[in-house]
């Protein structure tokens, strides 16, 4: 190591907690454990690189971006094939998103549980169950699905201050990990972690979600909040040293730049731009320390997977 640079090493007071998702029968994915800022290896250990979850909708609705429909066209009708394809291009987890569900219905919950089990059996990858960002539906479905997937050690959420009380007890009873979402604020993030652990779930079963904005749509706020959370964690805060996940795919695919079918001299080719939008939204959050990135387009997943493999 350079003599001039080595005094700039910073030693963390503690590492990020280890969160394990999945079981021995599938594949266990470990998030966290690092004691250094991203890629600053001299500071400490970085045993686990950022993991990628491929987000698959339970139902493809008319709102599903048409570039994604095109990219996954061979597998749209079959969750398992879709998940296998995602695995083959570099996904470490499959994130099944409850999409296109408008009412509370026990048979739908049962169908989601079946689908999730099939995906686990086919891919042997750990699974993540994501709500619809609809508090009433999430409060209904997530506890039911958690019970149906008992002991599969899934990552389930996001839960918020408004929903955690209804969802977390079932996650605890059925041995899952939870995604704790707060609106881009370090203090609220800490508070929600405390509230969740007060319900009896262990801190090493929490993954934080800072509710990021996409590139050009408030990305800078989450970028700074995640950096601040990491600095506080390395400085010894035991209620902030959880791994962090970001929904970079979801946020990128909400933007005009990915959705609008515009190809011109200013914005460039639509497909290339959309993929770059998702990859840069993701890669910039990897630079802040995100442990799990949830992505959508197969080409973006490939690119980020290669990027993670290549960077030291």
């Amino acid at each position: 190591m350079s003599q001039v640079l080595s005094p700039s090493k910073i030693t963390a007071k503690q590492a990020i907690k280890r969160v394990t998702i999945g079981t021995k029968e599938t594949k266990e994915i470990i998030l966290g454990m690092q004691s250094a800022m991203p890629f600053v290896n001299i500071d400490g250990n970085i045993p686990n690189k950022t993991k990628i979850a491929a987000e698959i909708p339970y139902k493809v609705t008319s709102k599903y971006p048409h570039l994604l429909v095109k990219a996954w066209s061979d597998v749209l009708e079959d969750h398992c094939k879709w998940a296998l394809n995602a695995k083959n291009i570099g996904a470490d987890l499959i994130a099944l998103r409850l999409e296109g569900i408008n009412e509370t219905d026990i048979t739908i919950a049962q169908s989601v549980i079946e689908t999730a089990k099939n995906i686990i059996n086919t891919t042997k990858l750990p699974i993540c169950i994501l709500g619809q960002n609809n508090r009433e539906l999430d409060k209904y479905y997530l506890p039911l699905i958690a019970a149906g997937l008992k002991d599969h050690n899934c990552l389930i959420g996001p839960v918020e201050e408004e929903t955690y009380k209804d969802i977390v007890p079932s996650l605890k009873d059925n041995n899952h990990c939870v995604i704790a979402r707060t609106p881009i604020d370090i203090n609220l993030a800490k508070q929600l972690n405390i509230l969740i652990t007060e319900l009896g779930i262990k801190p090493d079963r929490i993954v934080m979600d800072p509710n990021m904005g996409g590139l050009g749509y408030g990305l800078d706020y989450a970028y700074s909040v995640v950096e601040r959370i990491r600095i506080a964690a390395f400085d010894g805060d035991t209620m902030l040293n959880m791994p962090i996940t970001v929904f970079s795919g979801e946020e990128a695919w909400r933007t005009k730049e990915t959705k609008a079918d515009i190809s011109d001299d200013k914005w460039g080719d639509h497909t290339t731009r959309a993929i770059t939008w998702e990859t840069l939204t993701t890669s910039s959050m990897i630079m802040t320390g995100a442990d799990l990135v949830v992505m959508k387009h197969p080409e973006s997943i490939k690119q980020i997977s290669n990027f993670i493999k290549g960077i030291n």
Partner: protein
Amino acid sequence: MTISGLALFKLLPGGKKAPETNCKECGFPTCMAFAMKLAKGQTTIDKCVHASNEVKELLESEGGKKQEELTFGPISNPIKIGGETVLYRHDKTFINQTCISVQVKTSQSLEITNRTIEKLTRYNVERIGVSMSMDSLTIFNDNKDNNLFINIVNDLIARDIDKKLALILISEDKNELIEANNLLSASQKPLLYLKNASKEDYIELHNETNCPIAIESNNIDNLVKLTEELEKSNVSNIVLAINNDKNIIETLTLIRRSIINHNVKALRFPIMTFASDYCSSINATQEAIWAGTLISKYSNIVIVNHFDPALIYPLFTLRQNLFTDPQKPLQIEPKLYPIGDTDKDSPLIVTTNFALTYFSVASEVEASNVPCYLLITNSDGMSVLTAWAANKFSGEIIAKAIKESKIEELISHKNLILPGYVSMLKEEIEEELPGWKVHVAPLEAVEIPEYLKKYNLVKNTN
């Protein structure tokens, strides 16, 4: 700044309980208030007429802990790089946007080179009211063809491109760089990067041209020795070129820490990196990811080989995001924003000019596929609830904004959608705007698409 407001306060009259305590001559009510602003860099010590030498010296040594700022490019329109003072943007702010420079090589066909230069010179795109163009062009003589390199420079001059783009010239031939600079001397100061050079070469190049020079070395410790020796020879207009470092993020992070935390003067120069050092040259998307990474992590100049708006526009957007000042709530211009293909029946939504509020609402409206008019009022960049509490988002202000926007000429209805958090404003607005009906939206932006889908029903039954 690493000195706290409290530490500064202790050295001011207030902290020493001197007779001049809270004299207010600095324009602040108390020494404490002044100290807090000083720590944030929002005022300067010369405002305090009673300041001791001790506090002045402390601030001076602290002020020296920053990166050197460097200017190069067209004399009429130079670009600034470096001058950074923090490790994290939330510590204060990043200052000078990373220069993104597209590289052409003499080994490429001249036709491709000319086409690339033509396209990137013309390129311009607007985002949140900011017009963005390419800053810079790099010309690399990678096949030692002297004529071709000079021909490209001559061609740039003939097309006036030397007056628009900051040039970075790379070659192994010192005389060629000197010649190119002589040709350009009327229009610009390029950054000159002499490859495989000795200390003496750098000094000679600098003395002959008086241009900023990029220097390289096989490791950081040798680079430090080199900058120290160059400074002894009065060469301090330096850029550090870091090539092909297998732990590039660590190296760049440690260099920035060395400047900010340890005041290592020999590393205080702006840094230049090549995105293509870290990925396959044919994978343009991978190069863009690396360019973004190098922008995030402390490179002041990033060289890319691909020019493609589909890559450059996202990179410009990322750069804009990272270099906004987090201390100033990002505001957008208060006015009427049509979203989608609006017509006279389109819903009208009102909210404040805090940028994040705007982007949250605008992106949800876009996602809903329901064309809407979004009326943004001036709330000094405050979010809805904060603005309401500060009386910056009231019935009167909203009514005035509606009149001034002339929305009444664009729509044939009188229905206004109000953010859920300020439902208490409903009656106030209806009083100010006779004939208008106010509808209260959900609390969260994410619920807007659902709300808009049912909005026509709500509107008609209300």
